């Protein structure tokens, strides 16, 4: 495929690894090794192609069964870099296994951080929330809208794998250190926050039915008064109440859920919320 003598892997080989990775990333996830088995399984057939020597091949398999965990989409880049290193090693025998493992474990953390923010913290909630908008209008598109997220990330991960493979570890290290990636994250966070503000405004609903009746005067409708001060005051209090419960009080997910349910029951019993 290529004129470079050291390059034996074809685009098809890379695509095989990506598919084997994408379709089984979390399937074999265990507490002790997380995505290690998926990583090893993804590259196993290509490692066989690279290493004609049985011992080297087995060594490579064992190497990729070591602990590994990253965000799967951004992690495509790690797959790409590892493939280029294994390929080089298969030809030159000059890349020690510890170096490959070192690069893997060095990159998986920072890339997981970026991937969690971009993929799971921004792209997913925006797509799903737009899906909710369609669904609540009764449009069946809303029901299948989440698959847009799967398609986008599947393609993105494949490009990241090719990117990692072609440019290699040095380029990726450089990219991570440069400001570009931070600018992208800031931009994504701004879009994400803006959208989440808008969506929470539409979808968090807290209202009070309290009305104070007076003789010879108009009744005071509490909700109208709150609206005239700041629109959406109660939903905002709910969001930031939970926000501070998570950040300042460090309470768990389940505590929040059950507190909300209990508070709602009490408020509903006394007619404060409804």
């Amino acid at each position, binding site marked *: 495929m290529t004129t470079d003598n050291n390059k034996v892997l074809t685009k098809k080989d890379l695509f095989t690894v990506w598919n084997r990775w994408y379709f089984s990333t979390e399937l074999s996830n265990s507490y002790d090794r997380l995505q290690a088995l998926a990583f090893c399984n993804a590259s196993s057939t290509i490692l066989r192609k690279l290493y004609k020597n049985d011992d080297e091949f087995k060594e490579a398999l064992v190497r990729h069964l070591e602990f590994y965990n990253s965000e799967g*989409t951004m992690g495509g880049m790690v797959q790409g870099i590892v493939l280029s290193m294994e390929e080089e090693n298969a030809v030159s025998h000059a890349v020690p296994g510890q170096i490959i493992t070192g690069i893997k474990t060095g990159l998986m953390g920072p890339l997981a951080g970026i991937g969690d923010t971009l993929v799971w913290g921004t792209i997913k909630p925006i797509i799903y*929330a737009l899906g909710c908008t369609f669904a609540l209008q009764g449009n069946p598109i809303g029901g299948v809208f989440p698959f847009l997220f799967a398609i986008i990330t599947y393609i993105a991960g494949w490009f990241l794998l090719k990117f990692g493979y072609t440019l290699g570890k040095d380029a990726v290290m450089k990219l991570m250190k440069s400001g570009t990636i931070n600018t992208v994250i800031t931009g994504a966070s701004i879009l994400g926050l803006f959208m989440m503000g808008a969506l929470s405004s539409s979808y968090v609903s807290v209202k009070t039915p309290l009305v104070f009746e007076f003789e010879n005067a108009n009744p005071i409708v509490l909700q109208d008064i709150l609206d005239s001060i700041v629109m959406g005051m109660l939903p905002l209090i709910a969001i930031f109440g939970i926000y501070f419960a998570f950040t300042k009080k460090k309470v768990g997910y389940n505590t929040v859920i059950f507190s909300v349910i209990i508070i709602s029951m009490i408020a509903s019993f006394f007619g404060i919320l409804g």
Partner: protein
Amino acid sequence: MDVGLALFSGFVYWLSSCKVGYTLESSLGSGLFIGFMFGLFFGDMITGLALGASIQLVYLGMISTGGNMPADNALAAVIAIPIAMKSGLDANAAVALAVPFGVLGVFLDQLRRTSNSIWVRKADELAQKGDIKGIFKCAYIYPEIVIFFLRFVPVFLISLLGTDSVISLIESLPEFIITGFSVAGGILPAMGFAIILITIGKPKLLPYFFIGFFAVQYLGLNNMATAIFGTCLALLVIFEKSKKEA
């Protein structure tokens, strides 16, 4: 007892948790898609979608860091949606009914990941022999068989034996409890948004959240409009930042 519904619920839950496809699995397990599936099953797409979307909103910001899932929104949806559709419970109340099952689902996932340690150990031995077909089975086939039993069977049984009693329980509840569930269902999406704020919101970026929030409150923008304005806003900031760096 509704065997057809129980089989279908079990199948949907297995599909939503089958872990095939890193991000595809999230789409298959989304409240939206599960609502869509039950909409088809009951022949009432509007209600199915509304229920699915309402449950989805609670779990919008959830991220499984390090593979630990904080709650199982698929189980929440698979149990609550059919009950709500059969009993006519409103979408907000269905949300509050759903969340406890979301907690329960986490235990099933913990069982799954514990059992996966067996396959990793087995793969260790197979790697020494260079048996990649065996490794493939450990990475794919065996965990999927475990998933089938962990996901299909409990939901099949819960749906078969529990649905009717939950529905009669709901029908006997006093009015304020049902209203309380509705109130909780309206508040719970706040948790989804709070989690996103924590994940992506550096404190100095929080004003963008408020701009979005009040743009809808005061200007009544719809979601597509906010997506367009939000993208422009983000691009402006990116251009400004990269100009400074260049």
